[in-house]
């Protein structure tokens, strides 16, 4: 087990190097550069030359990349071209916000999806199943920005309600923080729950068809035990895989939802940086997001061994 984890972590290195190279090159390829955005209409050759020198953009590309990546390895993500702020501390404080939002959204989605998924499997082909499947389909197909915009407009028009303006940290004032975070979490959670619900339903159904369930029932186990101890546990693997992927995706930034609810998370930071062509910020954040995504997958793989002891990594 330990050697497996070490191997997986070592495998991270080539992945991250590949990603860093790709993102570095992509940023060079997209039209527009940080200096045009910064100077706007005041641009003239003299000013441009000043900034090219200041940002080190006069260096050959390979050297720019090597300088950047060596600093990153040393833990120095550099400073933003546009704001001249250090990238790493800001990225971390943004990540905390996105992390909280992700966890809240995930919990909301499990609370909705798993019970409904099980009910729907048990009441297969009844009207209850129909309703649940319809709702799940809505969750899968409604884009989160549409749901978020509708929700905010609806609350403001019908109830004259708007969440508190200006983000407040959980440890500063948890009540206000929760009021700010709950709406985006509901949006992300409901949208996520659609696919989890469908996965739970099909997964439980599949297990219920298997022979060992007959055995369990035959030995006289109660329906509760059949479902929660045997069916759900055995059907959990694909659900965990899906949830892991969703969480990994959310942690990488929930850009649109963050934007609509004015939540200063990681997604907002990346989006602003891309629009401004702020190379070191985009590169640093994407690298970090990739790292998180890979780590979440690793955690999911480890979780498998607890859910299903037959799985082991040698």
């Amino acid at each position, binding site marked *: *087990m*330990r050697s497996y984890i070490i191997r997986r972590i070592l495998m991270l290195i080539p992945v991250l190097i590949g990603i860093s190279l790709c993102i570095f090159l992509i940023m060079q390829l*997209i*039209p*527009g*550069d940080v200096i*045009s*955005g*910064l*100077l*706007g*209409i*005041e*641009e003239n050759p*003299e*000013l441009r030359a*000043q*900034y090219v020198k200041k940002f080190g953009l006069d260096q050959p590309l390979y050297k720019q990349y090597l300088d950047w990546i060596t600093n990153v390895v040393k833990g120095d993500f550099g400073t933003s071209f546009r*704001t*001249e*702020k250090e990238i790493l501390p*800001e990225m971390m404080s*943004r990540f905390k916000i996105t992390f*909280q939002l992700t*966890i*809240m959204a995930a*919990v909301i989605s499990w609370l909705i999806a798993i019970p409904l998924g099980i009910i729907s499997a048990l009441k297969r082909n009844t009207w209850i199943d129909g309703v649940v499947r319809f709702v799940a389909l809505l969750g899968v197909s409604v884009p989160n920005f549409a749901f978020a*915009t509708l929700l*905010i*407009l609806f*609350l*403001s*028009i019908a*109830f*004259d*309600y*708007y*969440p*508190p*303006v200006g*983000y407040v940290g959980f440890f500063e004032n948890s*009540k206000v923080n*929760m*009021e700010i*975070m*709950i*709406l985006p*979490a509901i949006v992300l959670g409901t949208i996520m729950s659609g696919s989890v619900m469908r996965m739970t339903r099909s997964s439980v159904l599949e297990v219920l068809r298997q022979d060992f369930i007959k055995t369990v029932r035959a030995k006289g186990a109660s329906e509760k035990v059949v479902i929660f101890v045997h069916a759900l546990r055995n059907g959990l693997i694909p659900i965990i895989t899906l949830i892991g992927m969703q969480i990994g995706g959310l942690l990488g930034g929930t850009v649109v939802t963050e*934007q*609509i*609810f*004015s939540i*200063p998370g990681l997604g*907002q930071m990346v989006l*602003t940086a891309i*629009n*401004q*062509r702020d190379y070191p910020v985009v590169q640093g954040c994407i690298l970090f997001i990739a790292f998180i995504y890979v780590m979440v997958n690793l955690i999911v793989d480890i*979780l498998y061994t*607890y859910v299903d002891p037959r799985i082991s990594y040698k």
Partner: protein
Amino acid sequence: MKKKVLSIFLLLVLMTMIFTACGGNEKPATEQPAATGQEQPAEAPAQILKYGTDAEPVGLDPHTISAVASVRIFRQIYNTLIDVDGDMNFIPELAESWEQPDDLTYIFNLRHGVKFHNGREMVADDVKYSFERILNPDTAALGKSYYDSISTIEVVDDYTVKFILKEPFAPFMSNLTSLYGAIVPKEVVEENENLMQVACGTGPFMLQEWVPDNKVILTKNPDYFVEGQPKLDSIEFYVMTDEASRIAALRTGSVHLIKLPASSISLVEGNDDITIMDFQSNDYLFLGFNFDLDKFKDVRVRQAISYAINRQEIIDLVYDGEATVTGLVPPAMGRWAMDYASEDLYQQNIEKAKQLMAEAGYPDGFETTIAVGLLDDIRGAGEILQKQLEQIGIKATIENLESGQYVDAWKNRTHEMMAGRNGAGTDPNRSVAFFYSSTGSANVWGYSNPAVDALCDQGKITVDEAKREEVYKEAQKLLVNDCPNIWIASPMDYYFVRKEMKNFNPSTFDLENFNDVTIE
């Protein structure tokens, strides 16, 4: 190992449980808006203006930053030597009075007792330091070219500063009204290397807190040099990138002020709590040409296009009629602007346009493209121009460009035609020479007309205002006839204001003056 992983897992479960518990408790709050709505006024009896802004400031250094989102904030923090009023006359700001003994010398008498936000008095040395900082190439100040004509800056005494120019430079005074020439304290710059994250000026408000992508809070400067101003205790800027979200926040009174394009007016119509304030902007909508292409080098083609389009139709369809026909010096510039609407080239005349096209060798027109940026009005105008140009056989395809691509096309002249919006500045030198002289930094078109260049040079050194006006009027006449751009309309700018916000009177050259604003 197994235990450790298990404990991490348990910790995660515990955390999620905590979050659920809190989330569960808070949920009813979202369904009982009335309760929260009533709490707010009780919490905040102080005079706090809440402004919902569309973007995060990139930094607060007035010398190196021109982003609107930043200027909006530091214009409350810093002052310039002089300012300009609605009729484009110079009025005192940090300088109480000034004199100009000859064409090259400007002497400013500073206000006494003005204090920086750190408590130190602002004196002539600070003025000298600020302009030296701007002129130092290492600062990479955006407004360096505004003040390049300065030869020496002399501190006569604590309250008198003398500028001597290298050569007569008529725009000098109006350039001093720009925030690119803000007066900053030396010790604060030196301590922090720059003014990106810190701010210390002489203005009505002081920087209290800036939380990235979230909010900026300014508090009242108790020592502000105008007695009784500002009336507000603080201004809170909240970043709300999403338009729908800004409108919702205004509707519920969570913010008092937002800026939106004309297209959003219908969304708040009939709402008694919201007033829409409009004023003539200093921008103009234009259609530009690439002078590398033979077809656009031909003045007859450009004139034909001017005859082919119907400016009023664009104003009616894009701006709901709320814009003014303009040329390169928009009407907000007052006496500097000539009367464009009556020009022959501004009257739609398809016959004449066709005839000019035929003379130029394009009796059947040609195919081309119109590059447009992301702004709604520019895109809308692009589509109408496309239709109007069809009448003389010009088949234009619209190219929608993301802002980075747009700037690239603009700079590298990779477009054929391009629709856009430009700001005309506060001095005719900016409106004319900057965009249309052969050496102008913003003459991206490749346009060159020696007669215009000569007038631009003359306008720059003619200090006598009346003569200067004549020079620029003549230049405008030449340019209108030459059509290096087709200027279309100068739109209005809009503020959406809650009824609680009083005494806010935005105007072209005094956009966001909150000094007299109160919240009731």
